[in-house]
């Protein structure tokens, strides 16, 4: 049993799952009905699911999708891309400008999405080349688009904040008639399934981690580290474009100033909470996604507690500090030792409760 516990402590999923569990328990104690889901009729007359749980899952989807790409970048490049939100604004602007120049039909939406993916991948590759080929520190390399990205989006939009509206778009950002689950949740699940398949049927996971842990070894075993890093940026580019487009569909307009503002920090935080070391190496994709939900759950909880929106960030920070400290190796070791003491020497006086 001791072994099972140790194994559990070693897996990277412990902390994110435990934090999620704590937030859920906290909410249940505070308000038993917090997670109740009800069926309501939305303004288009369709029965849809509603409740805090749904809004957590729904609200986190953009950050969760971006955290998938960020996980690959973090693992292989030993650093983070801080320009994801700005690139998402560019992708969203491209999406909107295509939609506005045609009549909105399904093929046009697909075309607009693919084009925004392409643009986003190009920008992401720009970061990737700086990082992988020129070996610039990721944070410095991506600082360029972090500051310039929203200006580029401003030019694409011609300085305005154009709106788009169509039942098709609200189906993507909200609900598809007949399906009571918000579409972003479905898209998120599709993404997760896709990426799981990629990990299952390619060696992407192994290559990424080998490059992140020891580039010298990767090179001498026939892996091209540059290629692996660029691939991470390509994946991230697609994730970022998807997140941008979902957000545009949800709010029906593109505002280059505010679209997914500060989301990059949430994304990086999601990866960190998820158990992937920000210094690269072993990664945990599902942990990152759970991390995104933890952050959103926190936000929703705080709003439900009527915390003023300006104060939410401070509360969030406080909770996150606790999570991060608990996931530090120092605390982990302490817990393992404590456990050993408690179960190996039952005869001795029990450990003092602190």
């Amino acid at each position, binding site marked *: 049993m001791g072994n099972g516990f140790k194994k559990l402590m070693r897996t990277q999923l412990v902390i994110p799952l435990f934090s999620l569990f704590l937030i859920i328990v906290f909410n249940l104690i505070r308000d038993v009905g917090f997670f109740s889901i009800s069926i309501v009729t939305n303004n288009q007359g369709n029965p849809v699911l509603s409740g805090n749980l749904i809004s957590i899952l729904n609200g986190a989807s953009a950050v969760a999708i971006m955290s998938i790409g960020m996980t690959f970048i973090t693992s292989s490049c030993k650093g983070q891309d801080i320009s994801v939100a700005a690139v998402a604004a560019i992708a969203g602007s491209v999406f909107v400008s295509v939609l506005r120049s045609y009549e909105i039909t399904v093929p046009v939406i697909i075309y607009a999405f693919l084009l925004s993916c392409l643009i986003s991948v190009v920008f992401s590759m720009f970061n990737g080349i700086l990082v992988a080929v020129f070996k610039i520190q990721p944070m410095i390399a991506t600082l360029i688009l972090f500051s310039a990205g929203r200006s580029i989006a401003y030019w694409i939009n011609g300085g305005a904040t154009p709106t788009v509206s169509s039942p098709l778009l609200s189906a993507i950002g909200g609900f598809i008639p007949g399906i009571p689950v918000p579409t972003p949740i479905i898209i998120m699940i599709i993404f997760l399934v896709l990426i799981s398949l990629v990990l299952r*049927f390619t060696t992407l996971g192994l290559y990424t981690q*080998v490059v992140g842990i020891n580039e010298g070894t*990767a090179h*001498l*075993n026939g892996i*091209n580290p540059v290629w692996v890093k660029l691939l991470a940026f390509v994946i991230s580019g697609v994730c970022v474009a998807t997140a941008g487009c979902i957000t545009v569909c949800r709010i029906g307009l593109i505002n280059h100033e505010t679209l997914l503002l500060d989301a990059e920090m949430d994304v990086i935080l999601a990866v960190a909470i998820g158990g992937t070391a920000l210094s690269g190496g072993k990664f945990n994709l599902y942990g990152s996604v759970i991390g995104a939900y933890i952050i959103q759950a926190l936000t929703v909880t705080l709003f439900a507690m009527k915390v003023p929106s300006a104060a939410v960030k401070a509360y969030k920070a406080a909770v996150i500090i606790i999570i991060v400290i608990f996931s530090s190796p120092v605390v982990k070791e302490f817990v393992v030792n404590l456990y050993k003491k408690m179960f190996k020497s039952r005869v001795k006086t029990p450990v003092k409760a602190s």
Partner: protein
Amino acid sequence: MQNNIVLSMRNISKSFPGVRALQNVDFTLRKGEIHALMGENGAGKSTLIKVLTGVHPKDSGQIFLEINGGLKEVNVRSPHEAQNLGISTVYQEITLCPNLTVAENMFIGRGNYRTVNWRSMKKKAAEILEKLNIPARAAQQLGTCSIAVQQMVAIARAVDMDCKVLILDEPTSSLDEQEVEKLLSLMRELKSRGVGIIFITHFLDQMYGISDRVTVLRNGELAGEYEVKDLPRVQLISKMMGKDLEDVSSLKKKSLPDEKADSPPVYEAVGLSSTNCPNEFDFKISKGEVNGFTGLLGSGRSESVRAIFAADKITGGRIKINGKSVKIKKPKDAMMHGIGYLPEDRKKDGIVEDLSVRENIILALQVMKGFFRPLSRAEAESFADEYIKLLGIKTASMDTPIKSLSGGNQQKAILARWLLTNPQYLILDEPTRGIDVGTKVEIQKLILRLAGEGVSVTFISSEIEEMLRTCSRLVVMRDRRMVGELRDEEMTQGNIMHMIAGEAEKNG
């Protein structure tokens, strides 16, 4: 009589989960003696040192230290405390700051922090350097000194902190012969000042050259304490291994296979050069041959084999595999043509430390299979299991991170990685460095067995005897050029030395 004993450890025991690392070990160090601590990897040398310096708490036993003329029992709880008691350690890897000056490195982290008198610090450092005859200036940046001098500065720092016991853990493993000589003379100097030195090394020559006494450990137990002059080498090795050396001497190498006109060499390079190995060279190896590259550190032997594997950027040359012209521009090309390469620096280029033993073993095969054809978990497990058994890799499980294995077992795992790819030509650059005698012999045997099965092997080792035992042909290198080749009977220590030194001796 406990005259001039500075340190006495009695009945020291220490276990880690699942392992008894030390069992009732005694160790005695006298004033002004150099006391070697010998044993295979995992014999308990480092654990003993770590118990002494307070890194690990001991389970039982006593440590006595000479304090003010009498032996007193001490309880060392941290390395810092050990230092205050006068026990200093210089580790294999230098733990100083290369970007600070020599003087700063000698005094950093000592005394009170409030004020630093740079001038007096520099002066004092210069005095110590001169006293110990260390060729460095106090104001020089440490990083610009050679590794040997850096090591000496580390020792000077330790010695200046009033140490009675100086522990040198493999101080010579990254030094060349001249540097080793300098370090050894520094050790003699300290000895004459009355410092008790514990010397851990894998090099028998150095151990015999300088030590007064030796304590041998085996499997966490004391195998004995001896006066060095009373212990012949063969006996020392059999004490360390716990068996007679017949195994070692029974190694039989193949003689050079007859060169047949109809079978082209497995690998042949003409005019090969790389960014790291700018001098073009020709090289070939035939099926089932074991050849070696020898030369001093920096003579270009590693750079040459790296060029063969295309580990550095290739700048020229034509390559034939089994007589057919091929292009080898990157490591993957070499791998696809059946070449395997075990790099010199296991930590930097060999292991992927956080990944499991299983993932480390299958890595090369996986890369050769390609991005879209991952090995299934079951396949990977059966491969890993097979080779863990075949090479006797000691690991808790195949899912254990490779970094928690001992050096010898890590090396075996990397060997397994290449054996799994079923190579026709295997390059092993220093596969036996820093691992215990038992594993060294196992690796040498493995090389000969592979050769018997028709695999060509290039074997590099800084221990010439090892190469003499296994190779049938030696390429000698000096100053980044191949200066000659020795075969079968020509291969003697003397001939090799002469050739490395550059003295013509054609009558070999």
